[in-house]
């Protein structure tokens, strides 16, 4: 049976995503590891999430569909980039985000950004989907199609319950 990581990657590939940048998170380690074995995706790790969004903007203008994989703490880092680059120039950007600081979180500090995550995304008018149970991922294909239809950054929050812990 296909793992959840395999299914996420298959949705990326089926939606012609060919350029993926990542800033790691433990919860996303499985997906990130799979990227390197995928022939149709160029995986480019970035050192900071706003840098990654710049890379994705360039790739999009060059004709490749991009995506970014990052932790929710990145929302705090990237507000200016999301607003003045991705949104201002109307570019699509699926953001697969580990939603740290939710139920099951062992690290107290992670709860501090978790309480702001959805409020910030709402303030930025970023369409936001929250994967809590495994079956929630069935919507990923539709979410990716929606992202490239409307040319917006779109957030997919994936919490510890979805990943079944750490």
């Amino acid at each position, binding site marked *: 049976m296909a793992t959840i990581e395999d299914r996420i990657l298959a949705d990326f590939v089926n939606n012609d995503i060919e*350029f993926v940048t990542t800033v790691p998170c433990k919860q996303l380690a499985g997906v990130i590891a799979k990227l390197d074995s995928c022939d149709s995706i*160029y995986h*480019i*790790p*970035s*050192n*900071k999430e*706003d*840098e*990654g*969004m*710049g*890379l*994705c*903007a*360039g*790739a*999009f*203008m*060059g*004709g*490749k569909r*991009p995506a970014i994989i990052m932790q929710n703490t990145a929302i705090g880092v990237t507000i*200016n*980039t999301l*607003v*003045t*680059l991705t949104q*201002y*120039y*109307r*570019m699509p950007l699926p953001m697969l985000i580990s939603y740290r600081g939710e139920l099951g979180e062992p690290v107290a500090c992670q709860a501090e950004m978790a309480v702001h995550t959805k409020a910030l995304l709402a303030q930025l008018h970023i369409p936001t989907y929250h994967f809590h149970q495994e079956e929630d991922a069935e919507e990923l294909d539709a979410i990716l199609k929606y992202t490239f239809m409307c040319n917006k950054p779109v957030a997919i929050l994936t919490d510890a319950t979805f990943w079944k812990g750490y």
Partner: protein
Amino acid sequence: MIRSEVIKQLIPVISDHFVVCNIGLPSQELHLMDDQATNFYMLGTMGLSSSIGLGLALAQKQKVIAIDGDGSVLTNFGTLPTIANNVADNFVLLIIDNGSYGSTGDQPTYAGQKTSLTAVARACGCENVIECQAEEAAQTVQQALDSNQMTIIVCKCESGNIKVPVIEMDPVVIRDRFMKKLEQRNA
């Protein structure tokens, strides 16, 4: 020689290529002197010219020149290891290093003091790093384009600005005409 003079002498070399231009005065100067569909002007987001340029170069075949500044590279220092480790031979990063934050009132940067961006780029693993003087900028960029090798150029020039109007074009228009021209060139 100040940055606007560097950009002016570059125009015959870069006019026909795809250019990602740094926020603020560099984009305004390029826009004033040689507005082209092949220019992508950054209207916001300080620091990301090199990242946008690298993503663009990796995604397609046309040559890409990213015009950046010393202050902007300092803002997005993580870009240099990413560039070094993801070689795109159609990419030229031109850092116009005037040792100051020109668009915000010429406050000095560390690049004009003890920090050498040339040495940093090399330490990050970039293989073709050339430092040149302002007068040599056009020739150095031409040689980098001709070499078909990813090149980082640190062009030292004097601090100072000319008066230029802001860019009033809509960002989506800038992006759309750029993408259409690129698609046409790649067809």
